């Protein structure tokens, strides 16, 4: 089992994590605008996460913590 945690306030909505997730479980949350005016990324099906940390590896803003 794996878990990813996103610090939404740090996310700039660049979409890089979305693109690299092998499980395609990250998406842009169009409902929310964070303090900096971005739509943050979020994980929609956490249980599918394999903890590969691809998302965290490519995130330029250190938004993501990965546990396994």
């Amino acid at each position: 089992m794996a878990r990813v945690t996103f610090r939404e306030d740090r996310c700039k909505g660049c979409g890089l994590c979305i693109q690299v997730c092998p499980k395609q479980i990250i998406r842009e949350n169009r409902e929310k605008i964070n303090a900096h005016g971005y739509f943050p990324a979020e994980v929609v099906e956490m249980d599918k996460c394999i903890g590969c940390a691809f998302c965290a590896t490519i995130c330029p803003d250190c938004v993501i913590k990965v546990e396994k």
Partner: protein
Amino acid sequence: MAVVFDRPHALVDIPMHYCPGCTHGIAHRLVAEALDELGIEGKTVGISSVGCSYNNYFYFNCDMIQAPHGRAPAVATGVKRSLPDNIVFTYQGDGDLAAIGTAEIVHAAARGENITVIFINNTIYGMTSGQMAPTTLLSQVTTTTPYGRDPKEHGFPIRVCEMLATLSGPAYIERVSLHDIKHIKKAKEAVKKAFKVQIAGKGFSLVEMLSTCPTNWGMTPLEALDRIKNEMLEYYPLGVYAGKDLEV
């Protein structure tokens, strides 16, 4: 559950000011991870340059000096000659290192100065809004090559690794890229190796990273990664240019 990925200690826990998707942020993390993993944060002095990363002294947790545009290698030399047992690195953009700072990087390399240079090649001046850099590709449109870079008018892009590799001073030079997971992982190994070379007292080390500037390239962050892959890799081949056989 164990933490398999978290922000490195050497990266201060504050938001960075870079544009969304700019790979400067990845480069920062890689450097910080190297400092963490080699346990050298406490004895490292970093030199920030002038470019979008001018204020990364806020981000790196080690002691930091902000250097004049292009002069980071000279500042680093001053530090390293003063504190030979400390670890000294510079973090420079392509305008900083390959334009105004050409003399300083060439001579730091020729001296074999025992420092590490992190060189961010994004083929543009990010900070000042997208002017041509010495590394701007032919035909690339920038704010100072509005009709595209034309070799007759603007000359040819400089390949820094290849040029510095003709000198006897450098111990280790490698070009890496930040455009996908695989290459980011290779980039990290290169950064670590560069610091190890310095720790071992072998001399000058430089890692050039192909990096994006979505803002001034006028692209989305994803398109920008693709541009590295599709356009930059050809002109800037990845690989080790000095110190291929060096073991550290």
